[in-house]
């Protein structure tokens, strides 16, 4: 049984049809990349998984439990956690308060100290308000916030967007470490090379349709296909 099974979901924004019979699966302990141009439906897929949107048809199963149509907080409590595209740090709360908030609905959350071991920068800034953090620090906090909950599966939505290359390298290292420690991750990224360097398998979405499933190596072997669906 896969950890996450998405079974032919159709999601709409009002009447706009955004996802057309999209299916994918995620096995425990693997990193899966979800690729595609923007507008393809990657974030929509994540939103549907997390319950922010409900599909009009199709099913999603997490560890065997059907979760489509459930509100986000119930899905979060089952062990799925989204790190959203805009990070969505609570600006008025301090770093530490953001971490405490994330742990409130979990029986044994990470104490802030453990977070600061992994992210020393956050330790230095633990009293700063969320809105005073730099982009890279906010992204670290967003990822840390998810880790506090010890989720079985993390959905990372464009974690490297708008960040300087050095910071991207930092975050990549952290993601690699998490993957090595067995954390299951699905990553949406427009930075294709970064995503492929992390992932064991990848999917490609184009205009709301799932058009590819395979390994990074297989994908790299067909550059024309890559450019067709990911480039121009």
């Amino acid at each position, binding site marked *: 049984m896969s950890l996450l099974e998405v079974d032919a979901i159709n999601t*709409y*924004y*009002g*009447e*706009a*049809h*955004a996802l*057309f*019979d999209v299916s994918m699966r995620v096995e425990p302990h693997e990193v899966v990349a979800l690729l595609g*141009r*923007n*507008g*393809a439906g990657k974030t929509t897929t994540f939103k549907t998984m997390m319950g922010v949107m409900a599909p009009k048809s199709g099913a999603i199963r997490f560890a065997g439990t059907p979760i489509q149509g459930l509100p986000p907080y119930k899905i979060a409590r089952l062990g799925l956690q989204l790190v959203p595209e805009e990070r969505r740090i609570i600006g008025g709360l301090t770093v530490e308060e953001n971490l405490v908030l994330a742990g409130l609905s979990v029986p044994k959350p990470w104490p802030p100290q453990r977070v600061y071991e992994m992210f020393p920068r956050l330790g230095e800034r633990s009293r700063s308000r969320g809105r005073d953090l730099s*982009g890279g620090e906010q992204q670290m906090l967003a990822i840390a916030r998810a880790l506090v909950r010890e989720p079985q599966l993390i959905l990372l939505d*464009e974690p490297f*967007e*708008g960040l300087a*290359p050095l910071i991207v390298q930092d975050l*990549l290292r952290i993601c*690699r470490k998490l993957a090595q420690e067995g954390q299951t991750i699905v990553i949406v990224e*427009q*930075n*294709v*090379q*970064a995503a*492929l*360097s*992390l992932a064991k398998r990848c999917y490609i979405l*184009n*205009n709301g*349709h*799932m*058009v590819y499933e395979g390994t990074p190596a297989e994908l790299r072997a067909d550059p024309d296909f*890559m*450019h*067709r669906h*990911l*480039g*121009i």
Partner: protein
Amino acid sequence: MSTAPAITRPRRRTPWPELGMVAFLVAFPYAIPYLGGTIDTANRILDWGLFGLGFDLLFGFTGLLSFGQAAFFGAGGFVASYLLTAPVTDNVLLALLAGTVAAAIFGAIVGYLSLRRAGIYFAMLTLAFGEMFYFLDISPLARWTGGENGLAGVPTPHLGLGFHLNTPLGVYAFIAVLFFFGFWFALRLIHSPFGAVLRAIRDNGERTAAVGHAVAKYKLAVFVIAAAYGGLAGGLLGLLQGFMPPDAFYLETSGQLVVQTVIGGAGTLIGPMVGAAVWLDLYTVLQNIAGVGALWQMILGVIFVVLVTVFRRGLCGGAVLLWRRATAVPPPPEAAAESAMRSEPAVSAPEPRAPIVRPPLTGPVVLATRNLTKRYGGLTAVDDVSFELREGEVRAVIGPNGAGKSTFFNMLANVIPPSAGTIEFKGDDITGLGATRVCQLGIAKSFQINQIFVSLTVRENLRIPAIARTYGSFHPSMLKTVGDDAAVNARIAEAAAAVQLTDRLDTPAAALAYGEKRRLEIGLALATQPQVLLLDEPTAGMSPAERADTVRLLKRIGAGMTIVIVEHDMDVVFGLADCITVLFNGRKIAEGTPEAIQANPEVRVAYLGSQAAHEPA
């Protein structure tokens, strides 16, 4: 397709409402004793009805919820009563006119201040200003207004024709005539170009502004009109009571108006009058039931809450809805075919793109940006982008996520102001003029998420930009019937033909299929007869078949029009664009023909990331 579009005429307006009102007004004083009331009750109902006509224009039709109308009711009433009791004049009509004008002036001031904020603030502010008028009346101005005692001795109306209207029926006739004129004017107003814009503002204020209307001016104008109605009704209250009470200024008075309008049905013109009848009726009926008498207002409050929760349209509104359902036109079978198209199979292997022969672009530069920049705090969303668009060109703006496309696009549409740089339209600097002004100049935008007027028909939708194009950003024409306007109708027909909605003109927009709604979305922009059309992801949310249809539609429209299109779908881009501008991290990194862009290595890196930087550890 070059045949002239068939001009389908809207149904002519029949005079049934006016005739019905006359008949009602004639019968009312004779019928009311059978319903348990007196002629005085009838007078009060009409007075509230008149007050409510203005309020319904403001709230029911334009969507502005004011809790301070008592200010104008009282102001008009006290000005008129003062003039008659001081006495300054004994001409009743003159006194009423003075009261109405005074109320309108106050309306202009209060409206100007309150409309500076929208929505909830507006409601709070009007409530506060209404109270301010009450306090002004009670204390500082008590010398003229009688303070808490009000003004007594208001004479019965006489028109200088040698007779007093001092019988109950005479007073009723006086009020009824004025009410009828108020009703007639309001009716003409809602069928006029001015009224059409008001309805559009209620439905979607942002879109109304984007198609070229000065929304703030329209709102202020209808606020003043509502104040004038209130002032006239206030003056009549003094007349029919022989006494002008300070409770005309009470918050309860404003509240009663709101409750009556909602119960009777907002947006129906006669709703407030029906609500007043219900209010007065409940009052008399419940008073006579033992044990319940004192509770009548609480019961009314409960009825109000229940109505707002489950039956928001009120009594008349519900009746109108049932009537519309009974006389509705069933949708044509094409709608079913449209929905069937939407379950197309997944995109198959795309055919190789045929090379397109493009004529060289030699027209004058129509739209240009120079060093356009937008910063949000420390983040630079758009960085020093310059571009030039020639007449007749179709330009696509593309780029990966976070490239700054939407920000750039919104600056072109003058929705957000740039931090630096300028935008020029046909050589003139249009930076910071705002979307309304820019639309009037000739640049129109269509939205990524449909911003159509869902409560209107297709015809009524297209009418809104057509009015703005024909008459400019503020056109207070309140007496003409907009359905008879030949120039506007011609523009509607043209736009409908261009997006192939001619046979759906009288369908409510909410009943259209999704693809048709997208076409209407583009039609709204087209109806402003723009020289430059800005399209924001026109194929968003469409199935592959709908995309192909949209590309064909845009090709047809595009002949001769200058277009800027933001898109993610590369097939659409390659099918349409003469030239492509690529943005990445806010900067323009490439610009050229589609073939050139495809071969450009920097563009490849932008989309796919550099191969070298991310080898796995």
